[in-house]
């Protein structure tokens, strides 16, 4: 177990922090939002991030990556989380490259991973079909047709769906609509005939899309992993996504906590800093305590992935639920403790509150993950 960062990871953290504060402060996110940037992130900045090796941070060296593992990626996500810097790190790197590394054929890996590591290929996972997280509720169907498949159905909550070059799609190849068995994965080029992508405007201004598939023809070689057993891979992909998102949320929550604590020391009422009031002090300590716990949980969860441990699913639900709850608390307190100014668009608190709720929901809410945690623990 590695509960503390090693020297390389510390260096990565420092360089990520420098880069993010220099090129991707919260004002950069505001610019993207206010200019209604159609990409939803800064493509030039993504190229720079890729040049720093971030796009290939979990990709093996043989495919052009840095093979730094999820602990390395976690360090970067925490820093981009601090400034709400939008990038395809989660959609393309965590979900997309994981899908290929976990289940891809040699051809699929060679075709896509090097391009992903260079920052040139963007990926998205098209798995959800409803407003609530339900990974096995798959009605989108792939029907055998000659050597290949025909895909029909629709997906929602597809992160970075409208900018992706390739989609990882879950489709039913057998079984009933909520069966865990009978789900298969496919790699679908976003510009295939019959793919229709609609970008959504979400409260956190991050990319999300609805995707429709109408008689999309796929080759046999577009299948990813074992037919009907896609849920095994999907779970593993989502668990990586959950843990990575927990790392991003941890960064964001720490940032809110830090600027809120500063405000408690600066803002004067009744002739003294409001941070001298015990009602606020105790809530600040509560936030601090939750963050300390979350740091340990996130680090342990990232380590579990890198060590290939069997408890990755438990750790993923643990981390997502725990950090989700902490983020919920801290983002709400961030607004409340700033008072009126916290309600204004000009202040950053609201941006974190909005991001918090979307991130809490994504890949399963805290309640969803407590349920899964209990089930995985045998009760």
């Amino acid at each position, binding site marked *: 177990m590695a509960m503390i960062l090693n020297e390389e990871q510390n260096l990565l953290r420092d360089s990520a922090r420098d880069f993010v504060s220099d090129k991707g402060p919260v004002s950069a996110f505001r610019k993207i939002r206010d200019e209604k940037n159609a990409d939803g992130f800064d493509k030039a900045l993504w190229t720079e991030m890729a040049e720093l090796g971030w796009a290939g941070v979990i990709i093996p060296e043989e495919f052009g990556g840095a093979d730094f593992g999820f602990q390395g990626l976690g360090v970067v996500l925490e820093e981009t989380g601090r400034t709400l810097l939008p990038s395809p790190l989660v959609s393309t790197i965590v979900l997309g490259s994981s899908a290929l590394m976990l289940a891809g054929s040699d051809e699929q890996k060679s075709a896509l991973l090097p391009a992903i590591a260079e920052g040139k290929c963007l990926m998205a996972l098209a798995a959800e079909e409803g407003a609530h997280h339900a990974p096995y509720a798959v009605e989108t169907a792939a029907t055998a047709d000659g050597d290949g498949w025909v895909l029909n159905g629709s997906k929602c909550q597809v992160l970075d769906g409208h900018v992706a070059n390739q989609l990882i799609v879950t489709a039913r190849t057998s079984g009933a609509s909520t069966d865990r068995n009978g789900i298969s994965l496919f790699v679908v080029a976003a510009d295939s005939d019959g793919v229709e992508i609609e970008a959504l405007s979400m409260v956190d201004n991050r990319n999300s899309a609805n995707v429709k598939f109408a008689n999309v023809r796929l080759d046999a070689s577009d299948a990813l992993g074992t037919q009907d057993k896609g849920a095994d891979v999907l779970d593993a992909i989502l668990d990586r996504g959950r843990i990575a998102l927990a790392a991003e949320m941890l960064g964001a929550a720490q940032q809110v906590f830090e600027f809120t604590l500063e405000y408690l020391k600066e803002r004067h009422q009744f002739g003294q800093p409001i941070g001298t009031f*015990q009602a606020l002090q105790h809530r600040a300590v509560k936030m601090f305590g939750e963050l300390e716990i979350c740091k*340990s949980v996130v680090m342990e969860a990232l380590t579990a992935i890198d060590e290939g441990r069997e408890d990755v699913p438990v750790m993923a639900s643990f981390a997502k639920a725990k950090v989700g709850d902490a983020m919920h608390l801290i983002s709400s307190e961030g607004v409340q403790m700033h008072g009126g100014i916290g309600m204004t668009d000009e202040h950053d608190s609201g941006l974190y509150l909005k991001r918090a709720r979307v991130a809490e929901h994504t890949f399963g809410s805290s309640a969803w993950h407590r349920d899964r945690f209990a089930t995985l623990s045998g009760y």
Partner: protein
Amino acid sequence: MSDLDQFRQETREWLEANCPASMREPMSESEIVWGGRNAEFPNPDSKLWLERMGERGWTAPVWPTKYGGGGLSKDQNMVLQSELKRINARPALFSFGLWMLGPALLEFASEEQKLKFLPQIVRGEIRWCQGYSEPGAGSDLAGLQTRAVPDGDDYVINGQKVWTSYADEADWIFCLVRTDTSVKHEGISFILFDMATEGVETRPIKLISGSSPFCETFFTDVRVPQSHLVGELNAGWTIAKRLLQHERTSISNFGAVTGSEPVPLEYVARNYVGLTKDGKISDASLRDRIAAHRMEDLGFQLTLKRVAMEATQGSGPSAASSLFKSYGAKINQDRCELTVEAMGAQGLGWAGDAFSENEISATRQWLRSKGNSIEGGTSEINTNVVAKQVLGLRDHQ
């Protein structure tokens, strides 16, 4: 072989030869060895185990050998602890002297005092109790009123202490007394004396959970030599605070030390509440809260580990450690509440054959756990301290 590997091998061999087999079994609370003049040993092996460990100084592994300690380095001590854990060895001695007083004496006492008191602590010969709280001085401990007035070579002590754990079984007391009434914190001194001295009286306190180790302790014209004062006159508050840090750490670790693993909540719930067809605890709300509690507990355990690792890296005590006491208390209280809730009426019995030993014990533990957030400094005071010292928030003016 490195020095440390060598040490590990020697330690392993010594423990193999010297730790009796019965000392490698899990122990109950009644088997705890507290030492002292009237020490009770549940079996001869526990006496032998204490003697052997005490002689080697391994009850206080990092204290200097000239004071009876083991003289081990931090690294060697980690090896020793891991070897003890490997064979599930029981702690040879439970002692406020080891956990609280000793570290304070090492830092503040005169050479003469160290030579006199520390070796006795290491060998478990003298059992200590702590005279801190008073009826009028709980959270505001520095408001204590017990007076020590100089008279010849002695102090004459009058006053009352409360919540003195095991005062009725202890041999000596480390006590906070007022030596200057004109100031508050700066008028407190730290003094040691024999509980057998004339004028000392103790009375046990019965709690909501039943009998308890706590006592009220009364001092009437108790004469104590002035040489038993530790540190400077009127400088006892600094020692008191330092000692409280040790106490808070030992309270948060206490459950782990006794090795008494409580029955996991999910088993209790399974037995008393039942399962659905697909194997889930049938009370969905209870199940959700058990999962949330397990996460809190696991997160806390992971944080204890992280902080221990950071400490070995020499980055100093982590800010997180200030939270251990109140978090540990909260988690234990939640566990007790959920256990009693899961047991239903069977978790609310007081005595008699209608309730199993486990059920009665759960009820008593639940009641007792309410004290976790009070003893050793309330969680509210602990939170004030974190706000001030860790977050840098100032006192209200």
